Every structure is written in C-alpha cells, then in structure tokens.
C-alpha cells in the first residue's frame, strides 16, 4: 500500500469548509459586508440576516438608511439565549447571552434585511437608533423594560409596559415574574 494520506485528508477539507465564508446572495448584505468587514451574513430560511458588531450597531443602521434607502425600521427587539436547548450556530459569530435584533424595510427597493448584534451579559448596552428611526422609541423602551438592555442615546428610556417601580426584567429567562408566594391553608412545607 502506498503512503496512506488518510489521517491528513479530512483536515484540509474541514479547514476549507470552516474558512469558507458564504458569499451573500443578497445585494444589501454584500454592501453591508463591504462596509463593515467584521460582519457575518446568514441566510435564515430565505431571509437575509447580518450579524454585526455591537460597536457598529448605530453605524449599520445609518448606513442602511442613508446609503441603502431602508426607509423604515420595523422592529427592534432583544432575545435572551441563556436557556436555549440548542442554539442556531452561525459560523463566525461569537454567541453571547443576548441578541438585539432589528428588522429593516426598504419601500423603494421592496426588500427587507435583519440586523442582529450579540450583547454580552456583562455589558448590556447598545446604541439607540431613535435618532435615525424615531419610531423605534417605543420599541427600545419595550426592549429595555422587558429585557433590561440599555439603549444609549435614547431620549426617554423608561419603562413602558410595566409600572415604573417594577423590579427586574421579566422576559429574561432567569426572571420569574409569575412567581407569587401562595400560602395554602395547610402548607406541608418544602418537600
């Protein structure tokens, strides 16, 4: 038998697949990628998604609005991934506990793009995009209220759905808003 390269063979292949960055099939995603080199494109069930660095969150929104004619931001929301059984793995994205998600819509180009940024538990701040898209005022307040992510530069970052004196952020997976101490008549105590 000649020299068997079997043990080495899978390695280059694996490396190749790991290094291979899928070229964005979406023109907006390609433009964002060219402008913000660290970002990652992901095709999520046919929808273009860009994973961008948290520091460039505001710049990406400004780029989308000013250069790419994304006329409306539909939605800003936050996801807590701390208790996920299995989490969607996107190559090149370092997963953190929180993800802040924004959906943009361009009326003149009739297309959408979703921008996601990873937010670590230790520093839950993101730049506010209310100066670009004033309609996100309520959305960012809601995200702050329910998830405890702070949007820096928001004109009025207060609780919106919950009372002002509420403690905690109920959509976090480790917050239990529904837990109300109930005392039964003959409480057997903890078992």
């Amino acid at each position, binding site marked *: 038998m000649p020299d068997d390269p079997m043990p080495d063979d899978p390695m280059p292949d694996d490396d190749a697949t790991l290094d291979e960055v899928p070229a964005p099939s979406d023109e907006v995603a390609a433009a964002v990628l060219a402008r913000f080199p660290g970002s990652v494109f992901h095709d999520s*069930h046919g929808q273009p998604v860009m994973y961008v660095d948290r520091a460039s969150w505001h710049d990406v929104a400004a780029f989308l609005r000013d250069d790419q004619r994304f006329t409306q931001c539909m*939605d800003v929301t936050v996801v807590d991934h701390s208790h996920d059984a299995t989490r969607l793995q996107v190559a090149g994205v370092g997963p953190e506990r929180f993800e802040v998600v924004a*959906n943009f819509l361009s009326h003149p180009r009739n297309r959408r793009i979703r921008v996601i940024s990873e937010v670590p538990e230790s520093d839950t701040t993101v730049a506010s995009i209310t*100066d670009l898209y004033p309609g996100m005022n309520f959305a960012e307040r809601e995200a702050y209220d329910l998830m405890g992510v702070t949007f820096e530069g928001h004109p009025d970052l207060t609780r919106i*759905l919950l009372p002002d004196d509420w403690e905690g952020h109920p*959509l976090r997976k480790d917050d239990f808003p529904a837990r109300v101490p109930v005392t039964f008549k003959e409480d057997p105590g903890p078992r």
Partner: protein
Amino acid sequence: MSEEIITSDPAANRLEAQTDEGRQVLRPGKHELVLTGGLWPDESETTIINMGPQHPSTHGVLRVMLELDGETVLRVKPVIGYLHTGMEKTAEELTYVQGATNVTRMDYVSPLSNELVWSTAVERLLDVEVPTRAVWIRMLLVELNRIASHLLFQATNGMDIGALSMMIYGWREREQVLRLLEMFTGLRMNNNFIRPGGVAADLPDGWEAATLEVCELVERGVREYSELLTQNPIWMERLIGVGVITTEQALALSITGPILRSTGFPWDLRKAQPYLAYDEVDFDIVYTQNGDCYDRFLIRLNEIHESVKIVRQCVERMPLGDYRVQDAKITPPPRARIDESMEALIHHFKLFTEGFKVPAGETYCAVESPRGEIGCYLVSDGTGKPARMHIRGPSFYNLQSAGPMAEGSLIADTVAIISSVDPILGEVDR
C-alpha cells in the same frame, strides 16, 4: 427650559427648543422634521391633564397625557401598559400548537391576522408548505376579519365623534360577519382556527351561500354609512384637516397600514410582498393624499369594499383539496382513526401535550393586518416551545403618531385623532 427660549420670539427658536428634549430629528437630507410640535410654552401657563385610562374614547385602557395651553394641545404622551399581561412570556411556556390560542388574544379585533402571522412563522421554521385550499381558506377568513375590524372602526369612530347612530349600525353589520366567522370557526372572536400546518377544519356545508349573503349585507351597510357620513357637512367639518400627518413623519415613526396609506403612500404588504394567494386575486390598494382623520375614515370605509371583492373571489375560486398539511408530525390524525387505532390515539395525545419540535432557527414574518404590518419574530431552540416570540404589533407603533397628529390641535380633536389611529390596546400592551 432655558429662559431665552421663553422670552425670545418662540417661532424663531422653534426647532431648537424642540430638539432640546431629545434628538427627534427625522430623515436624512433635504428637510428635517421635528416630531414634538407646537411652541414651547411658559411652564406656568400650561396644564398637564390625563385623558384616560378610563376615558370612553380611549378604546380600552389607553392613557394620554396632554400638556395644554388653554384648550390647545402642546404635547401628547401616550402612556400604555394597563393591559400588559406578558403574552410574549406566556408564549415561551406554550407549545407551538397552543401558541395560536395565545397570539389570537393580542389584537382581539382581528385575531385571525395574529394567528396567520404566527402560523406563517412556525411554518417557515419547519419548512412546511401549506396546501392550496388551506391558503385560500386563510385568505377568506383574514379578509372577513378585516371587514369585521373596519366595521368596528366605523362604529367606534362614529361614536367618538358624536355620530352615535353609527355605533349601532357598525356593530350591526360587524355582528353578521362575526356570525359567519362563528359558523366557520366555532367562535366569534379569538378563533384559534388558523394553526401551524393549515386551518383547524374544513369549511362547513353551505358556506358559499352564507358568505355571499353576508357580503351583500356588508355592502348595503357600507353604502348606508357612506350616505350617512361621507358628504355629511358636520362630519366633514369635524374631520377634514384634523390630525394631519405627512408621509415622512409616518415612515420615520414606523407607521404602517391605513395611516401610512392616508398620506399618499400606497404601501400594502398584500400587493408589495404578496403572501397567501393575494397575487392571484384582483383588488386595489386604497390610498388618499391628505393624511387627516377624514382620509383615514375614507380608507377604512373603502377597504371594506376591496375585502368584499376578495371574499367573493374566494367563494368563486376556492380550490379543492386538503385544508391542512398531511404531515403526521404536525397534523393530528383524523378523528375516526383515534377510535380504532392505539397509535393514532398516542399520536394525538403526544401532539397536544408535547407538541411538535421545531428545528433551531429564527425568522420574521409579516402580514398586513387591518391596522398595518403585524410581524412575528420567532426564535426556536429545537424544543417543542419557542425560545422567544415577539409580535410587532402595528397599533404599538401607530400609537406614536398621536403625538405629531394631535400637537397644536384642540382637546376635542384629540378624541377624533386617537379614534382615527384605531389602536387596539390588547395588541399595544400584549
């Protein structure tokens, strides 16, 4: 506020004074708009009053803080959350099968739109294609629901503005549509009929005749409203030029639906990004140019006609076939099988206790509800329950338009303006 703003000519300082309370400059380029309108008042002369949350014209439990100078509204701040029941948190505790029961209670005036957007999102994550008949049934139901919702708007809008007979008329026709929906789905509201994989049941016998009969009733009703209101001088005096919003403001504030269309921007997801079978039916987008309360009334009135048009086409062209996908992973076995097959019984039991598992992923689906774009952002972690479910409620965003619409107007107009936004607080607060 600093003194020079109060003492100097207020008009000259208008922009500066307004941007002072936060960066509210909109849209790039040529013209900058400022959202908090009105001149900055001398604080001693203004009054802040609360309208709501128990005010009859606030559509439930909306509270609006008004800063007034005499009878002129200077600032409007909607205060919401009185109906917050944590439905997004609840969704994380329910299986995908049960999820529809949850979302249907958000926008309780057009529950089927909520169910539709939820089911579409789940199906996108599952990569499931819904049978054609299910698609058309969904379209029929959603359009009937749009008619019911706009009829309710006609009723409450009339009531808010003082045309009290309109309330009776609007509810009368709406009840006919709800009876039809009850015949189809078993419930007047909160139908829980559109489910991941299709719809809950096939259409009942005689549905065509019943639907056409309701279509005629609705059309006759809408003609009556039109005769009563459209050219009514009191009605026109009360609404024309009240609560004007421009396209730029509407776009910047993420406003969708009839409010955006009233500013001369013909954007409707049913046309722009067709879902279901909207690209196969014939209907028009209704839009107007003035962006005032009268236009919003007119749009909703005429959208009823367009929806009736779609409903009639659904009756004519309803395809045959399955009403739900024949994928045993998602769809429960037929009722008859449960009696004779142990496996079918187990399958049925498992599906309704544990539900089906959805592969890890995330998606955003949007449909045109009667109020605008309703979106569902769904994150799955591979289990039988969603890791995160977020609903983009159109009313939630549309409510922000009350500010630019009402500022500078009179208190009495504020009632008309809030009414023309048509917010459903169940969806705002979720």
